[in-house]
């Protein structure tokens, strides 16, 4: 009797649930797959076969498709979000590693890591419309919310290149710490944040003056300084917090972005790389490259709540909100 009641409730829940629940998509660099995590149950519900060495992963602004850098196939794959089918491959230039989507939902700025190039892809015409020479090993990509500035970080040149999205020319270079990996603009576009993996810091720039406002440093008891390697990070919409993946320190730092103080560290899986944040900013999903799993951090309770096994070397993560 009890069992029947439970299943009846479950059935009702299924029927009344929105057509699509929230998901997190994770690219597995060494498995050539994407793991799809169902957010309510925190379980992998599907694994999609994709191209070789999948790394950068993001959804279009309308969430209809996902874009994936299949690095070793030198292509951007377009995946139907609903059916999980690979719709087509887009030209990307050689070895695309990461990218960013312009607010116009049409142009993707791509890092071609072996060619020292930033390529600009038009997803409608399916062609590369510009290639911009940048420093050695371009990696991090960001576009401001106004759509006027694109950033490329070069890992060996140790710079953030500021690119005018109209002329496709570099108009400024900011030196940062060694091996800059990731860049993001604050929601008001007034600050640019860049992580330096080997340098060990998070650099904050004023986007008007290019002046460096702060370098945020991390210290963890019993973890050697050279193991603290900031890679991916996320900024909250209200600009009060940054969550920073610290690589082989196996921690995610919580940073107060008003006074640039580190508030706390969450222990996650091994060599934490990138992350996705839920749209209500209550959950963080970190890709842990070496341990091959995703740590879910409950940002309200302020603690990790679950580890989810995914494929080998999970790299990128993207969040798909409910109803999309």
């Amino acid at each position, binding site marked *: 009797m009890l069992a029947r009641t439970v299943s009846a409730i479950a059935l009702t829940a299924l029927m009344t649930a929105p057509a699509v629940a929230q998901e997190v998509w994770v690219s597995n660099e060494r498995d050539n797959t994407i793991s799809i995590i169902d957010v309510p149950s925190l379980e992998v519900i599907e694994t999609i076969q994709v191209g070789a060495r999948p790394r950068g992963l993001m959804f279009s602004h309308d969430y209809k498709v996902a874009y994936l850098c299949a690095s070793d196939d030198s292509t951007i794959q377009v995946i139907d979000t609903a059916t999980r089918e690979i719709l087509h491959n887009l030209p990307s230039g050689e070895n695309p590693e990461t990218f960013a989507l312009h607010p116009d939902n049409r142009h993707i700025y791509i890092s071609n890591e072996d*060619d020292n190039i930033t390529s600009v892809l038009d997803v409608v015409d399916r062609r590369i419309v510009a290639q911009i*020479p940048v420093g050695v090993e371009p990696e991090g990509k960001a576009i401001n919310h106004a759509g006027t500035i694109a950033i490329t970080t070069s890992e060996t*040149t140790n710079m953030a*290149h500021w690119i005018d999205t109209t002329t496709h020319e570099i108009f400024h270079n900011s030196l940062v710490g060694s091996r800059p990996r990731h860049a993001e603009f604050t929601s008001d576009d007034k600050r640019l944040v860049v992580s330096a*993996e080997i340098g060990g810091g998070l650099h904050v720039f004023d986007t008007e003056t290019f002046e460096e406002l702060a370098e945020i440093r991390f210290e963890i008891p019993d973890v050697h300084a*050279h193991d603290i390697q900031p890679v991916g990070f996320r900024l909250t919409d209200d600009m009060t917090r940054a969550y920073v993946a610290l690589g082989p320190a196996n921690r995610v730092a919580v940073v107060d972005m008003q006074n640039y103080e580190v508030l706390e560290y969450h222990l996650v899986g091994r060599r934490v790389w990138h992350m996705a944040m839920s749209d209500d900013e209550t959950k963080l999903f970190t890709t842990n490259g070496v341990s091959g799993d995703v740590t879910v951090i409950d940002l309200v309770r302020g603690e990790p709540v679950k580890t989810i096994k995914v494929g080998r070397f999970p790299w990128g993560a993207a969040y798909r909100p409910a109803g999309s």
Partner: protein
Amino acid sequence: MVEPKETKARDGTKYDHGRSFHRPNPRDSLDAAFGRGQAIRCIHALPVCLAALAAAAVAEPINVAIAYLELQVERPPVLTNLDPIPDDLGRMGAVLGLADNATTGGFMGHDYSLTETVVPAEGDWSEAARAVLAESRILVVNAPAKAILTLADLPEAQGALIFNASAEDETLREADCRANLLHTMPSYAMRADALMQFLVSRRWTDLVMITGQRDPDRAFAQALRDAATKFGARIRAEKEWDMSSDMRRNIGQEFPLFTQDFPSHHVMLAADETNDFAPYLEFHAWEPRPVAGSAGARPDAWSDRVEAYGAAQLQLRFKRLADRPMGAVDYAAWAAVRSVGEAVTRTGTADPADLRDYILGDEFELAAFKGAAITYRGWNGQMRQPIPIATRTALVAMAPMPGFLHQVSTLDTMGRDRPETECTAFD
């Protein structure tokens, strides 16, 4: 006398041995940086790309002239001819480092050039060195320890900044250290300590060792003995291999007998730096034990098996340039040129004394694809670095191993540490 000799590299570039080959900037460096033969993979015309680079320049234009100087050595014959040592070993590392620097320099208004001088074994080393020093005050050297010392002691070399990218001898960093000489190649002691940390971390502490008869074999063997003492392993027996038989044909008969009287052990160490007999040891000893040292699991400045920490990109860039895998001397030469580039980028000067101060100071760090930032030891100019231990097919470990702690840097658990140094030239 230096005899000019001309050879042709695989990429078609001609090099005059004994003469300077100037690699002008920025066009050639860009070619190298963007992949030879494809020039700039820019959909715009080349001048537009260059204009874009120039427009982005932010600092005063400065010229950084780096010289690569090599003394060819007579290589002793070894049993197998399957693994020839490339003629351009070391030089190609410097060329790649220059390409990396030039790309960054393009954004900074810093112009880098590299002259390449290769002196034949019978050539006049001092004369060639003087000629190079007259043109450039920043040198990357690929030569035996003795020749490097001769160079560093030339009156013309005082105030220059010289990088040793080849010699592993401990004395060059200790009693014979020189203020104008830094070392990007790890010492024998650093390599031996790296391997011993790995063996001890696996609790394989009972060892035996077979040593060759050449000087580098003996130097590495001594480093392994010291490392065993340092980390608490035990070399229970040693034997010298006298090279009197052909291991390619007779190893199955010779080697089981040769090793039959060894006491029981976990691992057999080989100190055979020219790779004469060591590659044949595995599977032929009396006891079935793994081989480490010069063959088997080998600690080195670099291995083409290193893949993590972005190394795959460096390996690919090198392979595109040189058409072969990157070796330890290539890596050391690359790291030297990149160290100069990093220091120039951060200080905005090409003055060798200022660059030296910056490189030896606390601010300096170089991302060098081994997982930890590269810095230099202020007391003897040795580059601190992780050391990969790899077989021919796979990476075994990246030392320092977890648990080997140090109050300043875990990288200083490998090689001679500050309290033990005999070097006084850096005081």
